[in-house]
């Protein structure tokens, strides 16, 4: 992945980028520069603006404010810009009555590949994605995971300069996830930049050079993964599975607690450096039957987000 190359020109640059929707949602004042070989993660809860931002970067949505350039070009409809983007949007939309191979062939040609090159690359990518045997099946017969893998094939086939992926590991099995990580690492080594919207903290920690935390449409924190993790360095996360609701106020008032949040029947608590988990249990004194399980573990990017916003990332704790 990418080393520090401050002087390298940006493949993509966003300044004050805004897309406002009527109901007050959208993304606002986004600043982003993307250099060749860089892998950037967009993280945030549902509705935080990850998908909107990715659509703007992918030219699938039009900004209502700010500037956005790709390879120095600000025209999102310029075919020469789009030909260098590889896109996997949140919905794995395909021509359902056509086979997987027919779909991929169409997109390969739309992005400028000829017959021979399409055939060669698609053969390799279908093998890589595990779709070889299903290539002549109609997409309507594919599972969600297969459709998403086909999306990846279509996004990768023309070897884009910028790859934009929305939740790329969603519905993928562990093996496919590892294959994807390896592929993206190789792609970044060849100079392509990758932006991925994800709440998979393990993927982000393993793959991303930099992460942008989005909350209510704004970037609330940006940094390199090790820098962000220092926010919670030495801290620990306590997960309590509770049998009935508990008040968080008493927990949050403890000096030992940096952040606390409830998600279903699980309470996530970030303990300050050196704090003892027993202090948390002391608050719940007299309600010992309230807690059915308790886990203590090393914190990750999801905990940084929780500490910053008080909101848990969906599936951040998996």
């Amino acid at each position, binding site marked *: 992945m990418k080393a520090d190359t401050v002087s390298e020109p940006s493949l993509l640059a966003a300044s004050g980028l805004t897309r406002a929707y009527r109901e007050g949602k959208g993304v606002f004042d986004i600043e982003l520069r993307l250099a060749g070989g860089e892998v950037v993660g967009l993280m945030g809860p549902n509705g935080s603006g990850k998908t909107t931002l990715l659509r703007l970067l992918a030219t699938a949505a039009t900004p209502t404010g700010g500037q956005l350039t790709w390879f120095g070009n600000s025209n999102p409809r310029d075919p020469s810009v789009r030909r260098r983007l590889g896109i996997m*949007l949140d919905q794995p939309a395909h021509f359902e009555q056509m086979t997987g191979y027919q779909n991929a062939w169409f997109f390969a040609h*739309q992005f400028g590949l000829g*017959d021979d090159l399409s055939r060669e690359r698609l053969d390799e990518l279908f093998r890589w994605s595990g779709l070889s045997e299903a290539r002549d099946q109609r997409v309507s017969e594919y599972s969600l995971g297969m459709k998403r893998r086909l999306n990846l094939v279509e996004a990768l086939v023309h070897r884009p300069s910028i790859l934009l992926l929305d939740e790329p590991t969603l519905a993928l099995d562990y093996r496919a996830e590892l294959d994807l990580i390896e592929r993206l690492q190789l792609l970044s080594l060849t100079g392509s930049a990758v932006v991925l919207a994800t709440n998979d903290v393990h993927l982000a920690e393993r793959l991303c050079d930099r992460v942008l935390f989005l909350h209510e449409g704004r970037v609330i924190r940006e940094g390199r993964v090790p820098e962000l993790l220092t926010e919670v360095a030495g801290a620990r996360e306590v997960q309590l599975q509770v049998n009935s609701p508990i008040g968080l106020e008493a927990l949050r008032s403890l000096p030992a607690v940096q952040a606390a949040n409830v998600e279903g029947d699980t309470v996530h608590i970030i303990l300050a450096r050196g704090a003892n988990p027993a202090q948390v249990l002391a608050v719940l004194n007299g309600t010992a039957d309230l807690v059915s399980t308790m886990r203590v573990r090393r914190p990750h990017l999801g905990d940084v987000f929780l500490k910053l916003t008080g909101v848990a990332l969906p599936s951040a704790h998996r």
Partner: protein
Amino acid sequence: MLAGTIWQRELVEFAQRRRALIIKLVFPLLVAVPLVLSGAPTIYAAMALTMLAAIVGALGSGAVLTRERQSGLTLRYRTLPVTPGRLLIERLTTNGLIDFVQLVPVLLLIAVRHPSEFAWWPALLLSMAAVLLIGNLTGAVASTLSDSPGEVMLYVVIPLIPLLYLSGVFTPLEQPVLPVISRLLPFSYLYQALLGSLGGQPNLLPWETVLGGFGFLVGAIGLTGWFGRRVLESD
């Protein structure tokens, strides 16, 4: 079959949907056979066939594009390295061509039944093509307003019915201003060409109808390109 271009893809997908293909070919014949073979008054036959051509294209493209918008395919089209105008022209002209093929059996039926009206055939073909493309464009624009393929039918019919009336398709236009308005609408030329080719008494000459049909066909292609961004980039 592999398709690398937008128009090829439309044709391949259509050809692969055999049931839809058969229904599309049979449906117009079900309307046309009784009208053309039973010796129904030509004004009724021409009226029904004009309505058929106007609605076939509009409903087809409206329903397909609404479904694509819901499934996320419109977003994918939006990211293709093709300008929106060219993309919409390529899609709608191909769909218009498929609709034209769908109506070929009807045209052959008319030709067999009224072989002496050959002078009207250039006008009939051109005005039919123009109406089919304008119908497809109407459906495409309607798809941006609707949330379901069922709802799009409403948005298609609402403008088409008054326009068909103003084209003199339902009743002869007697107020002095209405015939002038009808000349500004593509449906009137198809209606006149159908009247002529069915052996009726049209108000226009064949060459006037050819000019009208050609003008609207060229205009429809230009308008389709102009509407590209409106149709493909509306959220």
